[in-house]
């Protein structure tokens, strides 16, 4: 007992002190935080750039109608298109918009002239502005005014409820998908990253030739388990540090760079399709309530997800899956002479992991499928697959059975892996085949 804790301590400390660990710990959150920050910064830079459009309106229908926005300014001009083209100055105007006289019936005749190829956002926002104006002109021609139109507009949003024995539960398909997938991805990553570390650690001990000294003091099984557990703790430490650092970086950055007033403004702009900010709080009509319902739905379903269950299951499958695969990775490390020989043995480990990922995606479409059920029972795929299924609701007996199989699977694979490990670590300079590995399973101690 004491010796295994010594081994765990060494495995843990040597890895945590490594430069690569410290670098990854710092770099990880920066990369993750940049996923949130970069889009915000990009949006800010885009806003600063204002495109001035010179409008030659031959129809005369658009005078004072074209709405300027933060990034788009329309300037009406009365000169002819030919003159405008000759005196066009790219410093003053980004482009010339030509609206022909028969635009209502022939929208295809609209032209945009510029010095450089205009970007796609600019073109679409001009198109949308004109389109909206023409539509509203056509509506008025039919005798429908703007207010009637707003009242007709309807947004439909189906609220989902699952019927359980406790009654109705509010759910959100969107959020469950995200939560489930995130758990699955994390487990998948953890198994690969740290499983490979176990394998490399075993190969290191074997090629260093220190292993025989150590197993004259401790049992090979203790050395193997000590290594697997030590590295699991390294992984948990890294994830914990990542979460803490990511949140602190995100908080600091959002306080520094993102002005809360601006945030509110942006929200308002998004909510008003016509560019005229709608006073959301004051309005009690049907318009704003439908806009709000989506957000409130997400908040409600956050409450509906059983977080203690999810977190508990995550930790269980996280560790269970890692331990199951960790033992197999250790066995591979012991069977080979160097990292370059690992390929042929890696494949059978990689395939079930990748398969579980594919199954996980099909589960998002249909959480109750037979495929989903069976793959969440098989210990090699259950850590990822079950994690994806849990947010959709899984019967307790299924969960218990899956957990039982995972524990049993872990015990069996570890037992088999230990047999290969024990023989392999003392075998040098031998190209090992699958047949050979099979024989090792039947060697007596």
């Amino acid at each position: 007992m004491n010796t295994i804790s010594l081994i765990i301590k060494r495995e843990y400390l040597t890895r945590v002190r490594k430069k690569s660990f410290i670098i990854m710990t710092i770099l990880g959150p920066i990369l993750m935080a940049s996923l949130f920050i970069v889009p915000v910064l990009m949006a800010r830079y885009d806003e600063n750039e204002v495109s001035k459009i010179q409008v030659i309106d031959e129809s005369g229908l658009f005078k004072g109608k074209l709405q300027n926005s933060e990034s788009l300014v329309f300037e009406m001009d009365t000169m002819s298109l030919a003159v405008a083209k000759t005196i066009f100055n790219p410093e003053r105007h980004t482009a010339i918009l030509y609206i022909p006289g028969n635009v209502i019936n022939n929208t295809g005749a609209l032209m945009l002239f510029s010095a450089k190829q205009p970007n796609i956002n600019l073109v679409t926002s001009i198109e949308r502005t004109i389109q909206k104006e023409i539509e509203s002109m056509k509506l008025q021609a039919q005798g429908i005014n703007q207010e009637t139109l707003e009242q007709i507009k309807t947004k439909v949003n189906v609220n989902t409820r699952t019927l359980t024995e406790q009654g109705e539960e509010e759910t959100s398909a969107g959020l469950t998908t995200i939560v489930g997938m995130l758990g699955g991805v994390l487990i998948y990553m953890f198994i690969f990253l740290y499983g490979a570390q176990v394998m490399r650690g075993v190969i290191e001990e074997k090629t260093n030739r220190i292993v025989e000294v150590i197993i004259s003091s401790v049992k090979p099984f203790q050395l193997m388990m000590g290594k697997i557990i030590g590295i699991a703790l390294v992984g948990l430490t890294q994830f914990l540090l990542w979460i803490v650092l990511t949140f602190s970086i995100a908080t600091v950055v959002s306080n520094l760079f993102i002005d809360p007033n601006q945030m509110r403004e942006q929200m308002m702009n998004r909510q008003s399709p016509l560019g005229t900010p709608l006073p959301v709080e004051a309005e009690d009509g049907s318009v704003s309530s439908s806009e709000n319902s989506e957000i409130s739905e997400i908040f409600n379903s956050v409450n509906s997800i059983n977080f203690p269950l999810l977190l508990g299951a995550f930790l269980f499958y996280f560790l269970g899956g890692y331990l199951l695969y960790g033992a197999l990775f250790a066995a591979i490390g012991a069977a080979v002479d160097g990292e370059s020989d690992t390929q042929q043995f890696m494949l059978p480990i990689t395939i079930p992991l990748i398969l579980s990922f594919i199954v996980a995606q099909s589960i998002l479409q249909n959480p109750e499928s037979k495929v989903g059920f069976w793959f969440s029972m098989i210990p090699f795929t259950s850590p990822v697959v079950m994690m994806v299924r849990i947010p959709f609701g899984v019967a307790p007996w299924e969960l218990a059975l899956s957990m039982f199989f995972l524990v049993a699977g872990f015990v069996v694979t570890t037992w088999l892996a230990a047999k290969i490990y024990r023989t392999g670590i003392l075998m040098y300079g031998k190209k090992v085949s699958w047949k050979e590995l099979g024989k090792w399973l039947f060697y007596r101690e």
Partner: protein
Amino acid sequence: MRLLISAMILSVKNVTKQYATHRALDNVSLEVPQGSIYGLLGPNGAGKTSLIRIINQITAPDEGEVLFMGEKLRQKHIGMIGYLPEERGLYKKMEVGEQALYLAQLKGMSRQEAVLRLREWFEIFELKGWWRKKVEELSKGMQQKVQFIITVLHEPKLLILDEPFTGFDPINANLIKDELLKLREKGTTIILSTHRMESVEELCSHIALINRSQKILDGAVRDIRRNFKSAKYEIEYKGNAIAFANGLWTGYELLSHEPHGELMKAVVKMGEGSSTNDLLASLIANVEVHSFRELIPGMNDIFISLVKESNEQQPVAEL
């Protein structure tokens, strides 16, 4: 005399170890006396390492048993045995001191005790300034010294060294040899597995010879050499070669006879019932004898002749 030797630290009794395709050890028994330096000899692949791994409880025998100080070998004996394997190494990226402490603690020593003893040993082996260096910064000889220290640090009752002198320059090999002799004086029993016969003759009091999974010889070195005495004598003399040959009786056989610088050198085998004094007396009358010594077979000769002989007796040892 018999009573003193009868205290055995290790008894290997009828041990057999079978791997899938070959038998590594076949009914091997040996007795290692307390306080001896015991040479475990044999050609490559004879089964020495398999036997050593069984003694270290890295593997278990299929048949037979091993007794340590009269008890059946068990987990608790691990701390009383020190093992330096032939395939040995250290964690390259770990600091020397920290690594030595780790391995000592695995053997059951407390950290404080290990620190104290390591300081002493680092002094003896001139490694004092290297405590905080990484192993990869050390020369190969220094790494070997560190490994030796780790093996003996917990003051084992039984020390098992597999080819301990490979990788050492003559100076360091002597340093290790001296330390081994000191350890023996303190009562440590040492099992030495090696191919180097000169170190066997220099150090070992007992040996066992293993060939093709079987023990073919064991016992005290002194007894073995006496048994292999062939009654051959080497004589260097000045004078007439014919006169020398004439001086030999029929009881003597002249094996070789050749000039050696200014002198002549002859090897004579003595027959039953003759004595060295008779031989000398008859020679002195004819030639001027410069030297006279008995040719005792070296361990190397015994080793080679026995291995050859046993290979001829059982040409294929495979199953």
